[in-house]
C-alpha cells in the first residue's frame, strides 16, 4: 500500500523555522487534513508533501509498494495552491485543458473530464472568462479544478475548499470522497473545523509544530472537560467577570462567551446564581475541533 511518509521534517525560511520535527504517515485512499490557523505552517507542510519545496531537515517521501516505480509515483502528486497556479491570460476552460494535457491521463475523454470539473466547481458561467478577470472565490474553484483534472494518485488542496460557496463545496467533497473510494489520497489544508471534520485523520499544527494527530473525534476528545457557553445580555463587563471568577481564558464565538471547564455543571449553577441578571442563556457543550485548535495554540 502506497503512503506518504513525513519523517522529522523541518523547514527553515530565512532564519525562522516554519516547521519543526513533523512526523506522520498518510495511507493510500485516506483523506488527511492538515488543520491549523494561518501562520501555523500548514502551507509549508503541504508544499513539502506536494514536492514544490524540499525540507531543510528530515524527509518527506512518497512510498511505493513492491513493483511500483518510485519515479513514476513522484509524478503522481497534484497540488492546488492558496495562490492560484493558473495562467492569468487564459480562460478557465483553457487552463484546465492545459493542465490536463500535462498529466499522463488518457487523451480520449479529456475534454469531457474538463467540462465535468467546470460543472462540478460551479464555473460554467465563467468558463470562457480569463482567470485574471475572476473574483477570488471563482479563482479558488478554478485552482481546485486544476488539481483535480490531473486525477493524480495524491491530490493536495491548500485552504481553498472553504472559499467555495456551500453547494460547490458539497459537490467538491462528494467528488473527493468518491475518488477516495477508488484509492486516491487527498491531503486537505484547512483552518475550518467544518472541513476538518470531514477528513479521515487530522494533523493539528500550531507554531510550526504537530500538536495532535488522530481522527477528528480523537482530536476533539483530546480537549479535557466541557465548554461552558454563556449568551450575554449586552453586559460589556461579563467577559472580564467570567475570566476573574473562573480563572479561565474566555473567548467569544458565534455571539457567545465560552470557556473550558473541568466541572461544567457546577460552573453553570454558579453563573446562574452569581451572574444570573447579566446572562441570557447558559449551556454546556462538548469540545469541538475549534476548541482543540485553541488548545493547540495555547500549548
Amino acid at each position, binding site marked *: 500500500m502506497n503512503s506518504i511518509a513525513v519523517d522529522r521534517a523541518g523547514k527553515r525560511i530565512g532564519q525562522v523555522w516554519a516547521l519543526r520535527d513533523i512526523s506522520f504517515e498518510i495511507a493510500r485512499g485516506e483523506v488527511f487534513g492538515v488543520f491549523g490557523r494561518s501562520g501555523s505552517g500548514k502551507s509549508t507542510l503541504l508544499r513539502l508533501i*506536494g*514536492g*514544490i519545496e524540499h525540507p531543510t531537515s528530515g524527509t518527506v517521501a512518497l512510498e511505493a509498494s513492491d513493483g511500483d516505480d518510485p519515479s513514476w509515483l513522484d*509524478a503522481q*502528486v*497534484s*497540488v492546488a*495552491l492558496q*495562490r*492560484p*497556479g*493558473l*495562467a*492569468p*491570460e*487564459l480562460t478557465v476552460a*483553457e487552463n484546465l485543458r*492545459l*493542465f490536463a*494535457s*500535462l*498529466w*499522463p491521463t488518457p487523451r480520449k475523454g479529456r475534454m469531457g473530464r474538463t467540462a465535468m470539473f467546470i460543472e462540478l466547481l460551479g464555473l460554467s458561467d465563467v468558463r470562457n472568462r*480569463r482567470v485574471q478577470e475572476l473574483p477570488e472565490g471563482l479563482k479558488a474553484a478554478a485552482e481546485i479544478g*486544476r*488539481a483535480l483534472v*490531473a486525477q493524480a494518485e495524491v491530490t493536495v488542496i491548500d485552504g481553498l475548499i472553504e472559499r467555495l460557496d456551500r453547494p460547490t463545496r458539497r459537490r467538491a467533497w462528494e467528488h473527493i470522497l468518491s475518488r477516495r473510494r477508488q484509492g486516491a489520497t487527498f491531503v486537505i489544508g484547512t483552518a475550518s473545523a467544518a472541513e476538518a471534520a470531514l477528513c479521515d485523520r487530522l494533523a493539528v499544527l500550531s507554531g510550526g509544530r504537530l500538536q495532535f494527530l488522530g481522527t477528528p473525534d480523537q482530536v476533539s476528545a483530546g480537549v479535557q472537560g466541557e465548554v461552558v457557553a454563556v449568551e450575554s445580555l449586552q453586559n460589556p463587563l461579563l467577559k472580564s467577570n467570567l475570566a476573574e471568577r473562573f480563572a479561565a481564558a474566555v473567548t467569544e464565538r458565534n455571539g457567545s462567551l465560552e470557556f473550558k471547564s473541568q466541572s461544567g455543571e457546577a460552573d453553570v449553577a454558579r453563573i446562574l446564581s452569581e451572574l444570573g441578571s447579566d446572562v441570557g442563556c447558559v449551556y454546556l457543550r462538548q469540545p469541538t475541533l475549534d476548541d482543540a485548535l485553541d488548545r493547540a495554540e495555547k500549548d
Partner: protein
Amino acid sequence: MLRSFVLTYWEVRRVRRSRAACAAVLILPVAAVAAHMLLGNAPGGALLGSFFPALAVVLGSALVWMRSVLDRASGFAAGLESTPAAGAIVLRARVLLVLLLVLVQTAIFYGLLRIVR
C-alpha cells in the same frame, strides 16, 4: 518531448493574448526596418540586415526570460512545478518559444523590408 510541444502551443496562445508581449514581439522588426530605411545603403544598414536574426535571438530570449519572471510573480510557475511537466519540459518549451519568436520576428523583418523596398 510531446509535453514540451503542448506547453509551447499554450505559451504561444498566452503571448497572443498579452498586448505587452505582442508589442514586444513586433517592436524589434518594425524598429529595425525603420533604422534600415534611415541608414539606406550605409554600412550600418547592411549590417542590420545581416545581423537581424542574432538581434531577434537576444530579444526573444529576453522576452521569454521576462515572462518567466512574471510567471513566478503570478503563481503560474508554481502551478507548472506541481505537474510532471516541471524542470526539463518547461525549459525545452521555453527554448522552443524563443525559436518560434525568432522565426516570427525574422519573417516580419524581411517581409516588411520587401514591402518598403
